[in-house]
């Protein structure tokens, strides 16, 4: 039997209406609650005047996201994610942070790009600004830094002493010192140029190249890989000024790294990561560029950064994306032989910057939301987080731009730090 709604503003006798309001299905995305929680906890972490422990918000957010992931993985919507995640080991929670920048785990020196230019970080954590440069990269043994500022390239000692400087036809970017130390390749304007390590004999290699850093062969030969403006991967013998290999590469390629004693070339774009085998054709007879093999990336995730391990046997990748509506980042280590990848970290927000330790035993990754660098072991050793990173590179103690690690020196001088 149907009846009209009763009305009693002073009592609770509208039971049918109350029940209907309580039970009426409300449309909501399953992840909406967790999406809101992430935003609320982030706001809380920023405003909180009395912080009991710097690790608490990270832990809570990590737990919340873990719960969300669990919920999604159990839902039909998460099926594609589950299919992929099943292939990897679970990531450990981020290590608790230590206040301030202290000794670099595993040793070595860091070259860091902060808001006011490059800085050098010594093994004990002490640091100094290199000078008025825009970007920089290590020489193979860390004896010098190739530093770029506007249309000038300089060779600078780590203490800031500038040894030489040259002008180029266009803004200088991505200087890369050859493993032998004899040559520096760099982009100048739209072109690619090379100069001897003593600053002499600068000359063009290509008039029009893609906007990404070239990469030298680690074999010690003066062979340089780069991508031209048409998107073709090229390998040239710089001394003989001769092309020794070419191949089609990824559309929108942003990362190129030659490693593994010259045996592999890492190619990365926001959508794809692939490793290409490279075979030398005898002494100075060029190289054979093999067929690349791509790593399977989880659907919907984009590559934010990628780096080849010093051995060439592993590839670390920062992947970012949304599961449901939750922005998150993951640090995944892929195996060159395509064994199961390992997820080292999965956190809400953005991870930025990726650098392998010289021996390949650790990875350094930045977590801007908490102003931290995470030093994560790829083996069984414990990780370490160092907080207050921005302040460490901001004169006067003001928090500045989150610093980006340009290089962890030096593969040529340190043993494996595992």
């Amino acid at each position, binding site marked *: 039997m*149907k009846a009209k709604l009763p009305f009693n503003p002073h009592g609770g006798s509208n039971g049918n*209406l109350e029940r209907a*309001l309580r039970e009426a299905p409300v*449309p*909501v*995305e399953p992840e909406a609650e967790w999406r809101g*929680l992430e935003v609320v906890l982030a706001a809380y972490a920023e405003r909180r005047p009395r912080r009991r422990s710097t690790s608490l918000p990270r832990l809570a957010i990590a737990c919340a996201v873990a719960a969300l992931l669990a919920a999604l993985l159990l839902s039909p919507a998460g099926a594609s994610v589950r299919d992929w995640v099943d292939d990897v080991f679970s990531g450990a929670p981020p290590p608790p942070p230590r206040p301030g920048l202290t000794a670099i785990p595993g040793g070595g020196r860091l070259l860091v790009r902060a808001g006011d230019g490059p800085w050098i970080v010594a093994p004990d954590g002490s640091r100094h600004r290199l000078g008025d440069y825009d970007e920089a990269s290590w020489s193979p043994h860390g004896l010098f830094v190739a530093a770029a500022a506007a249309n000038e390239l300089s060779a600078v000692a780590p203490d800031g002493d500038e040894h030489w400087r040259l002008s180029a036809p266009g803004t200088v970017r991505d200087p890369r010192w050859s493993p032998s130390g004899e040559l520096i390749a760099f982009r100048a304007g739209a072109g690619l140029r090379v100069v001897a390590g003593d600053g002499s004999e600068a000359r063009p290699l290509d008039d029009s190249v893609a906007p990404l850093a070239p990469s030298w062969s680690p074999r010690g030969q003066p062979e340089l890989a780069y991508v031209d403006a048409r998107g073709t991967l090229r390998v040239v013998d710089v001394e003989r000024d001769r092309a020794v290999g070419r191949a089609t590469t990824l559309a929108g390629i942003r990362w190129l790294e030659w490693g593994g004693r010259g045996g592999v070339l890492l190619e990365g774009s926001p959508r794809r990561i692939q490793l290409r085998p490279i075979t030398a054709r005898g002494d100075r007879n060029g190289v054979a560029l093999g067929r690349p093999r791509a790593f399977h990336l989880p659907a919907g995730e984009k590559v934010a950064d990628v780096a080849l391990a010093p051995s060439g046997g592993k590839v670390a990748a920062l992947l970012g994306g949304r599961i449901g509506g939750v922005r998150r980042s993951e640090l995944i280590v892929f195996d060159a032989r395509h064994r199961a990848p390992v997820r080292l970290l999965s956190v809400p927000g953005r991870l930025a910057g990726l650098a392998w330790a010289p021996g390949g035993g650790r990875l350094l990754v930045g977590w801007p939301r908490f102003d931290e660098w995470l030093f994560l072991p790829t083996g069984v050793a414990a990780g370490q987080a160092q907080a207050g990173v921005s302040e460490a590179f901001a004169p006067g103690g003001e928090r500045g731009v989150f610093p980006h690690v340009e290089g962890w020196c030096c593969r040529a001088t340190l043993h494996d730090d595992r």
Partner: protein
Amino acid sequence: MATEQTVFEDAPPSLSARRERRLVRAAQEGSTEALAELYAAHWRRAHRAAYLVVHDRAAAEDVAQDAFLAAVDALDRFDRRRPFAPWLHRIVVNRALDWARREALRRRVDSEEAEPIALDQPDLGDELMAALRDLPPEQRAVVVLRHLLEYTPGEIAAMLELPRGTVNSRLRRALDSLRETVEVDR
């Protein structure tokens, strides 16, 4: 791909008044876990109240989130001897009302273009929901506060900063309208 629209029942985890006071105090002192627990205890009810006022899925999510953000912002000023829920619900319903009023104004401005109202039309098969949607937002708000969140007219008057008589008249008009369109099993 994520399911576009999912419907779930929302039984919130219940907190005793004592437990809630402890959580509020802990959150004021910096405990993220306490805040997360308060959020978990109150989000679904807050979201439901928001949805029943705005009848828009995305807006309801925004309103619930904004309400918690506002609560976080004002947490230090919150008198923890008072219950947390009414404080939060007051924020939720007032923000939902603001949104509904803006939306109604926008629809009037855009009416010449005869754009369909951007409301969710879930396949609920629920006449009550449709009838509720037809009410003015001010009446929806008092119905939700009275019959979902179970506040007295006096409490509603304080929450919405209205005379108690206005609350009663809105409630009466709302239920009269609902009677005209809805029959409910007794």
